[in-house]
């Protein structure tokens, strides 16, 4: 790889070494990635705002501190992008929605604060599906910045709702980004763009200052090149927040040197495999062969629950409540996707008793899944049943008769951590992925599994031609 190419796709850990041995500086890195965001990120509809002034201030500070021997840790001086639902003081935070494109908050989200304290440099607010998909979008063109474009094939979608976070990391426009997931919004774009995305345990990362879609389902997590980088970023953003009551009391410490790299016990979930695309299935089977070098594998099935209907009722009820001002004011009419202009109204049809019924079933789901997942270091499953859909057709049209597994709904309902890592390519040269889902609170163990998988494979070192 050429110098520029190597820098574009360097990991956080590699960049940290380069900064400390004098090969580059925080201001050089900020300039380098801002240029890529302007030139490439804009072509991929990945960028909402480039935060140049802030970035250069933060980079100069990092430079001075590192020169003075004040080292804030592995993210010090490293540029990153944030999904545009995280509040940034004085800088617009659009939530991906045209009617809110000039919205400005007078405070920073907790994640932005924590990354600043870790010395990271915010270079861009990244594009996303409008309102994080809370209005039920059904095709890629659902953001005022245009459809998220896949760095591997510009006729394909980037995935959503953390679209810009996925494509910017995938195209080497930032070393890492922050995304959020209510039901698939980290794992989908990470999987589609061929990067590594971590959905932490619910409550692991404070959501203070983030757009709420579903108070009981929203999570914030890192989107990076490797599982190791996800661990470094998670360690910086995780932890209790007295001003955010859903945060877990326990701190998270990332200690890869103390973790196992083999001897794992992994459950293999095959539900829905017969409906996946051939390449997805073949790549998953190859992943299982690779995993068998570091783990014992055992077939598992999820206990029988109405996962998808339960999740849908919770998201629609909470989403309509959370975004009600946009519905009542009529601003939803200004959204990009026609289906999003009417999608919020249906949530009013859910009776309170049925919302509570869903939440009562959810308690059973959590209990049963704790029993199941406590037996494994992780459960493996394809990240998605197909590669990214073409830009110009609806998801349903591309999906056809395929019916996807219920693991995403189950894992999100129970607040379980999950990580997707690239595991090959499918049709139209688009990446496929394998996901590992872990026991609630065991983010570190999940990272160990994914890191060990990446030590056995090289898919995370393949990059698109940008």
């Amino acid at each position, binding site marked *: 790889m050429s110098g520029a190419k190597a820098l574009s796709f360097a990991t956080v850990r590699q960049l940290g070494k380069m900064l400390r041995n004098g090969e580059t500086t925080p201001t050089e890195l900020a300039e380098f990635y801002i240029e890529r965001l302007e030139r490439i990120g804009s072509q991929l509809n990945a960028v909402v705002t480039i935060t140049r002034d802030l970035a250069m201030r933060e980079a100069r500070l990092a430079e001075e501190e590192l020169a003075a021997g004040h080292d804030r840790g592995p993210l010090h001086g490293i540029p990153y992008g944030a999904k545009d639902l995280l509040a940034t003081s004085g800088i617009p935070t659009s939530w991906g929605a045209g009617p809110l494109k000039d919205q400005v908050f007078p405070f920073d989200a907790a994640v932005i604060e924590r990354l600043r304290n870790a010395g990271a440099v915010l270079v861009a607010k990244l594009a996303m599906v409008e309102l994080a998909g809370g209005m039920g979008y059904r095709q890629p063109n659902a953001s005022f910045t245009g459809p998220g474009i896949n760095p591997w094939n510009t006729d394909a979608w980037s995935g959503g709702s953390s679209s810009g976070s996925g494509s910017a990391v995938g195209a080497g426009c930032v070393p890492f980004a922050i995304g959020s997931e209510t039901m698939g919004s980290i794992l989908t774009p990470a999987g589609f763009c061929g990067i590594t995305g971590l959905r932490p345990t619910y409550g692991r990362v404070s959501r203070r200052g983030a757009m709420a879609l579903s108070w009981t389902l929203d999570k914030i997590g890192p989107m990076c090149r490797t599982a190791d980088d996800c661990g470094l970023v998670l360690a910086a953003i995780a932890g209790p927040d007295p001003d955010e009551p859903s945060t877990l009391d326990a701190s998270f410490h990332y200690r890869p040197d103390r973790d196992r790299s083999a001897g794992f016990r992994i459950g293999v979930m095959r539900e829905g495999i017969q409906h996946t695309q051939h390449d997805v299935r073949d790549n998953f089977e190859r992943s299982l062969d690779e995993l068998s070098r570091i783990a014992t594998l055992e077939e598992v099935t999820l206990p029988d629950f109405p996962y*998808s*209907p339960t999740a849908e009722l919770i998201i629609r009820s909470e989403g309509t409540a959370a975004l009600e001002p946009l519905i*009542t004011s009529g601003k939803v009419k200004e959204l990009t996707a026609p289906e999003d202009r*009417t999608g919020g109204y249906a949530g*009013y049809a*859910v009776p309170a008793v*049925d919302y509570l019924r869903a939440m009562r*079933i959810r*308690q059973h789901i959590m209990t049963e899944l704790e029993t199941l997942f406590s037996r494994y270091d992780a459960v493996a499953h394809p990240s998605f049943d197909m590669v990214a859909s073409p830009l110009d057709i609806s998801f349903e049209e591309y999906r056809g008769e395929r019916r996807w597994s219920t693991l995403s709904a189950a894992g999100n309902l129970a607040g379980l951590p999950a990580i997707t890592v690239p595991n090959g390519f499918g049709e139209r040269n688009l990446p496929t992925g394998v996901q590992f889902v872990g026991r609630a609170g065991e983010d570190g163990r999940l990272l160990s599994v994914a890191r060990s998988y990446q030590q056995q494979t090289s898919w995370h070192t393949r990059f698109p031609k940008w």
Partner: protein
Amino acid sequence: MTGSDNGREQYAISRQRASEIASQFPGRLNDSELEQVAQRVDRLFRAIEEIRKYPLENGDEPAPIFRPIGKEQP
């Protein structure tokens, strides 16, 4: 009653509920948009139908645990 009769009746209920919602926002939705809302409502009603099949006991509490705000007693 056939399955399709049942489906039509179910959809009529969804359409009615969508109209009630639309009446809270006078002049907001045209016929085609109202139809889209009805389809979404119908989908949610089917989800409700599914979860109502799951048996629950009186003591089954919802997932979020209510915690009063205040200092814990020693």
